[in-house]
């Protein structure tokens, strides 16, 4: 025990020491060159192969030998604006301007700026970084051969119509937008969250022999562990199937443990969650036609970390996180423990409780484990019915199912009262940890079977079996239970509690190459604040 404490202490110290090492200052940005080709290639270099960046090279109407380039990001700009306020005037309207012929070279840009661009907001940018920042915020950059300055024309405009709050992953506090079915809109939503040219959106050959579905992978260069990217690409290229209709197809074709009940690939419907996963060093996979994006590698603890934890203050979030673990425990083990306690180890139940349980069981025809299995199955039926029905009907289905049926079954003496309570608690708890809800439902039945034969010993053996199984799992090379097993004390702080943001200095060692998240200090008010009052 002492050893653990000292280890914990040492790891704390190490983190603090590392935190004081100053990060290298931001590399200064070079100025633009006067040659268009060079500028373009430099910008392309910065964006690498991101598919959502558009490069449009053209010649303005007044001089067909002159070269110009437009750079913008699909989805962030309103293409109508780009066409009408930039391309159209430059290509068709400017040549009609007679003054142009008398214009000197040096003033060409000024001239264009003044009379050819019917756009209300327009800036000049001289450095590469300014241009890129502008492009990322939704402007269109206009580069003209021979000028070391770029024009940033405001063409912001993005899809807002089809975006609605997703049904899964609802939040009380936090962004309410969810991905749409169109991949172009989704990439733009992601770009708006992460305005950084290092966010790479790479396209792979369209997947699916017949469907030719667009699949992008997203990651942040410099944060992501390059191994994941190559591995994801490798696995995606191996896919050979007639159609990809949902990201679930891809998930099942590239996952590490197809025979396991545990998911080794995560999915999300929300851009902010995807952004936060990318910031941790994960790789995202976007598929056209579905709002669900995949994230890899997926660790089990992610099921217990909700994005909202980080949006609200740490104390309540910590409590909620603990409750999620309790809910997992209840949802998976409660019926099994009930069965094994009441059928195998009634000596553990306090006498008064035992008497009332025995009273409730008088006259119930089935043994407890049959009751538990039947109720478990009935619960799944009601859940499924409630989900598939249109919402108003679904509600009445669940009311009829839970209230009327349960009450009647108890009255008729088919099912004992405590079992209804157990199943109800279990059912509610199973909605708390949604990402692995299906694995939990399977485990629940498995444990009831274990308990029905061997009591607590059976449950123990079941737990050990599942434990070993989970410990064997890896997601893209990362142990599934990391950082709990293998234990990493330094990273345990984000597992059971939700640490304050200013103390989350590092990213996970296994996930990311660049471990420093940021170095904000613990906020404190200025010392002389009081003086202002008097």
């Amino acid at each position, binding site marked *: 025990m002492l050893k653990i404490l000292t280890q914990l202490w040492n790891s704390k110290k190490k983190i603090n020491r590392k935190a004081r090492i100053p990060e290298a200052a931001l590399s200064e940005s070079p100025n633009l060159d006067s040659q268009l080709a060079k500028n373009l290639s430099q910008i392309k270099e910065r964006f690498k192969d991101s598919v959502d960046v558009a490069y449009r090279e053209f010649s303005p109407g007044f001089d067909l030998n002159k070269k110009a380039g437009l750079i913008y990001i699909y989805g962030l700009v309103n293409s109508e604006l780009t066409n009408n306020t930039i391309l159209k005037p430059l290509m068709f309207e400017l040549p009609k301007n007679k003054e142009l012929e008398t214009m000197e070279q040096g003033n060409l840009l000024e001239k264009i700026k003044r009379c050819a661009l019917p756009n209300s907001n327009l800036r000049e940018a001289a450095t590469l970084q300014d241009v890129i920042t502008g492009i990322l915020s939704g402007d269109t950059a206009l580069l003209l051969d021979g000028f070391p300055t770029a024009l940033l024309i405001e063409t912001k405009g993005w899809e807002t119509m089809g975006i609605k709050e997703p049904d899964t992953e609802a939040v009380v506090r936090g962004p309410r937008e969810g991905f749409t079915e169109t991949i172009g809109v989704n990439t733009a939503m992601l770009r708006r969250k992460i305005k950084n040219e290092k966010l790479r959106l790479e396209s792979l050959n369209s997947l699916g022999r017949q469907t030719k579905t667009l699949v992008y992978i997203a990651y942040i260069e410099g944060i992501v562990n390059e191994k994941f990217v190559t591995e994801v690409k490798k696995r995606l290229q191996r896919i050979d199937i007639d159609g990809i209709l949902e990201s679930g197809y891809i998930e099942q074709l590239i996952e590490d443990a197809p025979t396991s009940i545990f998911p080794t690939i995560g999915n999300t419907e929300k851009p902010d969650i995807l952004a936060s996963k990318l910031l941790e060093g994960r790789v995202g996979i976007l598929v056209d036609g579905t709002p669900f994006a995949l994230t890899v590698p997926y660790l089990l603890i992610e099921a217990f970390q909700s994005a909202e934890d980080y949006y609200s203050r740490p104390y309540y979030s910590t409590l909620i996180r603990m409750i999620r673990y309790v809910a997992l425990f209840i949802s998976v083990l409660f019926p099994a423990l009930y069965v094994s306690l009441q059928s195998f180890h*009634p000596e553990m139940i306090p006498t008064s409780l035992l008497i009332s349980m025995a009273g409730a069981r008088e006259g119930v025809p089935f043994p407890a484990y049959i009751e538990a299995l039947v109720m478990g199955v009935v619960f799944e039926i009601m859940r499924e019915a409630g989900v598939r029905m249109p919402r108003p009907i679904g509600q009445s289905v669940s009311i009829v199912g839970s209230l009327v049926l349960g009450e009647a079954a108890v009255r008729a003496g088919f099912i004992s009262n405590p079992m209804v309570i157990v199943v109800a608690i279990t059912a509610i708890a199973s909605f708390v940890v949604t990402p692995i809800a299906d694995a939990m439902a399977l485990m629940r039945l498995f444990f009831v079977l274990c308990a029905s*034969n061997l009591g607590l010993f059976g449950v123990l053996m079941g737990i050990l079996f599942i434990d070993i199984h989970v410990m064997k799992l890896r997601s893209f090379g990362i142990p599934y239970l990391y950082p709990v097993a293998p234990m990493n004390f330094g990273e345990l702080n984000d597992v059971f509690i939700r640490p304050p943001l200013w103390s989350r200095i590092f990213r996970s060692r296994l996930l990311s190459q660049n471990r420093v998240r940021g170095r904000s200090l613990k906020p404190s008010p200025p010392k002389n604040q009081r003086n202002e009052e008097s």
Partner: protein
Amino acid sequence: MKGKRGVAFLLCILSIFLLTTGCWDRKELDQVAIAAAIGIDKGADQKIQLTVQIIKPGALKSPSDGGSSGTEKGVWIIKSSGDTVFEAVKNFREKSGRQLFWPHTKVIVIGEKIAKEGILPAIDWFLRDPDMRLRTYVLVTQGEASEIINGDSGLEKIPASHLERMIKDYDILSKSVATNLMDITNMLLSHPSHAVIGRVGKSKSVQGEEEVFLREAGVFRKDKLLGWLNPLETRGYLWIQNKVKGGVIILPCTEEPNQLISLEILKSKSKIIPKLENGTLKYTIEVDVTSNLGEQMGTENLINPEMFTVLETEQGQAVEKEIVTLIQKAQEDYKLDILGLGEATLRELPQEWKKVKDQWEEKFPQAQIEVIVNSKLLHSGMVDSFKLPN
């Protein structure tokens, strides 16, 4: 390949679970009879007779829930007999129809006849069976144990729970001893000391209802009942055993001897100190008593330092008298080391103990015992003494 093996393995385990749905240790709650108390007697035919209180869960349901009305008894009492305890236990199946479930047994009552013949044979099964707990209380009774098990409670639906609460709170009165299976086995196994077990009895109340009470204690030589201690002697025993937690000490007023004063014992502490002086063993029993003034029947002014000192001395003497009475009874009447002197010697002077070990039976009655009582009085309650106007 790897995956296939995993699946095969899973199926293998699952099928074992499904196919072997034997019901080895499974007992459904509606198939067991929960025993609450058990009495052990020896019948006239020299057979072991067991009487057991079985809880009727149906009778304990609240009436709104389809349960019976409040008048029905919460327990069912059945008897069984056999040559051994185990056989008698198994013979319950002749009548019970359900498997008896023992872990929630609160009390074991041993009848006088068995107690006189030896209790070890009677409790062996309770120690050996994994279902029984070592903390089950064991009491002896004068007469038949079945009488006690048959006894009713005016308050609780399960008489055994009533009894259990009385036993748990024995040290509030300190008139009897609470002994569980572990204590008894310990007392029987340790060489020098002998067992003292609480006594439970039954009497008729004013209304003619039966009442079960816990008072006095039985003294055992090895595992055989020898005689009884009265309530004051029992408290003497508890003082020495460091088991007094509460109780009342009655003293006469100094000025008006026919009026009495009650002192409420708050806490006490005692230890036995063996000493070797000139080759002979001497014992000092040191008892600390702290109490409050609980009641005063006379009108004398007691609430001053002088009177408190006097009362403290008197309290000390009263306690000493109780202890000395017990010591005399142990040394002269029973000639049995129920005080734990031998054990104290064994722990403190192991070398000396080896010498006297074999003649301890003869040596104990001659042992010199000194009793020191440190007595203390703390509070006097909400009022001072009342002086009636002349």
